[in-house]
């Protein structure tokens, strides 16, 4: 059974920690009772940092006791996807290639979380180099879904999704190149936020594809996503794509009125080839948004049928370029599927890569035109449920498709355009698997999608569901 204290949200725990009604050490103990019980079943972590976490918790307790409260993440147990450099802690990126790498620096997002007072409980399992969606990791074992441990948790931040859902941490830091925050969040029944490209520094995150990579949180609630984003957002001179725009007060702005907000409902692409249970749950969620006073407008965005090709050309070319030196020295240390992707990247045409980058500009324009008529775009996060570990094909309504196609289809448009998107739970299937509602918005309008997601969350009880892992 999950320890009750560790299944609470950041926004519930923070005032208790600040008032010293609970201590960070007490909270950490509760979290580690879950980790010790569930790690053998779910394999959410590659590295568990219990000794360091205990030191962090003791320090947080002392600081808070002395009146030096840093903010809502102070003393909160947080996990970090093993993609992010952590000073003095092994960082594998889920690979054999980096199996023994111990960085002497922190990724910027990790450094910001440390400044905010987090207690880092460990480095979470992930798909090798974030290059896939199953999290069936050949070197560290597959991460498993807390709602059905025979199934995948989605990926590539699969360990993060599983750990947050099963209360092995309160929140987790993830990355999203083709959906890798939102896919495991939807698959595990938690909230996942991919911010606007440039909002959170990529420095210290092992790249998959420089121009597609995003950094963001996986949390239990929408408010927690806002609190987490506030801690990690902001300009960083070490990331050339980092934005100088001022960081909004997300927690305050998300509390605004949703009445009159326009929800764009795509008439094509985002509702095609979708499992009927998912389609039904998402349409009910849209009905709930209307009950809250939002309006719906039908939208049609040109260019979506090119997204798969654009993603393939950009991702493969950039990934192979990054891995070139590792391929020269350690080619045999890659798994067969990642090795194949990297080899294929050598044989794609530069003209297709440039055409994809040009098409990206066009796609951004098309979305911007859409946002003249809609404030947010609402869709399913995924068209199908996560399959059993080892199974690579899923049934998406009337279409059988590869798990990669299914996972990326509704997620990749927002990586290509850099637009912010959040997934929130909006129901469960008859056999107990979670369903995600995706809400996307204009560039740097995280507050708007948080507002719509928060209003929906408050009008439903899905975020209170907890898995029972036996």
């Amino acid at each position, binding site marked *: 059974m999950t320890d009750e204290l560790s299944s609470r949200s950041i926004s519930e725990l923070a005032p208790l920690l600040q008032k010293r009604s609970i201590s960070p050490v007490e909270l950490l103990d509760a979290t580690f009772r879950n980790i010790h019980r569930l790690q053998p079943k779910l394999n959410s972590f590659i590295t568990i940092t219990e000794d360091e976490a205990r030191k962090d918790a003791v320090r947080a307790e002392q600081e808070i006791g002395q009146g030096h409260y840093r903010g809502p993440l102070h003393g909160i147990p947080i996990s970090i996807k093993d993609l992010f450099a952590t000073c003095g802690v092994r960082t594998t990126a889920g690979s054999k290639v980096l199996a023994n790498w111990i960085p002497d620096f922190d990724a910027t997002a990790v450094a910001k979380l440390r400044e905010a007072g987090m207690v880092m409980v460990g480095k979470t399992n992930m798909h090798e180099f974030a290059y896939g969606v199953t999290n069936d990791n050949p070197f560290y074992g597959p991460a498993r879904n807390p709602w059905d441990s025979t199934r995948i948790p989605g990926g590539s931040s699969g360990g993060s999704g599983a750990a947050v859902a099963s209360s092995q941490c309160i929140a987790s830091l993830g990355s999203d190149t083709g959906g890798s925050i939102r896919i495991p969040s939807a698959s595990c029944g938690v909230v996942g936020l991919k911010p606007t490209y440039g909002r959170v520094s990529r420095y210290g995150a092992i790249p998959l594809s420089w121009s597609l990579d995003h950094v963001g949180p996986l949390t239990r609630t929408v408010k927690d996503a806002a609190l987490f984003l506030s801690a990690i957002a902001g300009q960083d001179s070490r990331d050339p794509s980092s934005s100088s725009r001022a960081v909004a007060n997300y927690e305050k702005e998300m509390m605004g009125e949703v009445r009159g907000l326009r929800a764009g409902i795509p008439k094509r692409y985002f509702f095609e080839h979708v499992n009927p249970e998912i389609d039904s749950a998402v349409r009910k969620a849209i009905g709930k948004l209307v009950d809250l006073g939002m309006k719906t407008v039908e939208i049609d965005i040109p260019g979506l049928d090119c997204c798969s090709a654009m993603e393939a*050309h950009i991702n493969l070319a950039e*990934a192979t370029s990054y891995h070139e030196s590792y391929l020269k020295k350690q080619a045999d240390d890659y798994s067969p599927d990642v090795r194949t992707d990297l080899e*294929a990247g050598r044989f*794609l045409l530069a003209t297709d890569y440039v055409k994809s980058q040009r098409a990206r500009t066009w796609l951004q324009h098309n979305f911007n035109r859409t946002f003249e008529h809609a404030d947010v775009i609402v869709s399913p996060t995924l068209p199908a449920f996560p399959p059993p570990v080892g199974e690579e094909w899923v049934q998406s309504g009337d279409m059988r498709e590869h798990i990669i196609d299914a996972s990326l289809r509704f997620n990749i448009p927002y990586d290509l*355009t850099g637009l912010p998107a959040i997934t929130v739970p909006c129901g469960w299937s008859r056999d107990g698997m979670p369903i995600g509602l995706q809400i996307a918005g204009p560039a740097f309008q995280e507050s708007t999608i948080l507002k719509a997601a928060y209003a929906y969350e408050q009008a439903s009880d899905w975020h209170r569901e907890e898995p029972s892992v036996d």
Partner: protein
Amino acid sequence: MAVLAPTRIVAQGARTSALLQSMSSLTGAQLQAQWVDSTADLVNVIVDISAPLRALDLGEIEPATTFFAR
């Protein structure tokens, strides 16, 4: 993370495999025999799904040298 649907394309497989093996002077790297077929399958899938992208007329639209969200 590439879109991978290996059953979609098989006919071009052998021809592409031979082509990839012959391209080492262009790529600067020798593709080992054990990776030729899987790599050719994936390249064929990507070429197949690229038809709508290649058909686009993007006029004067330029790629950004560094990508920024806007």
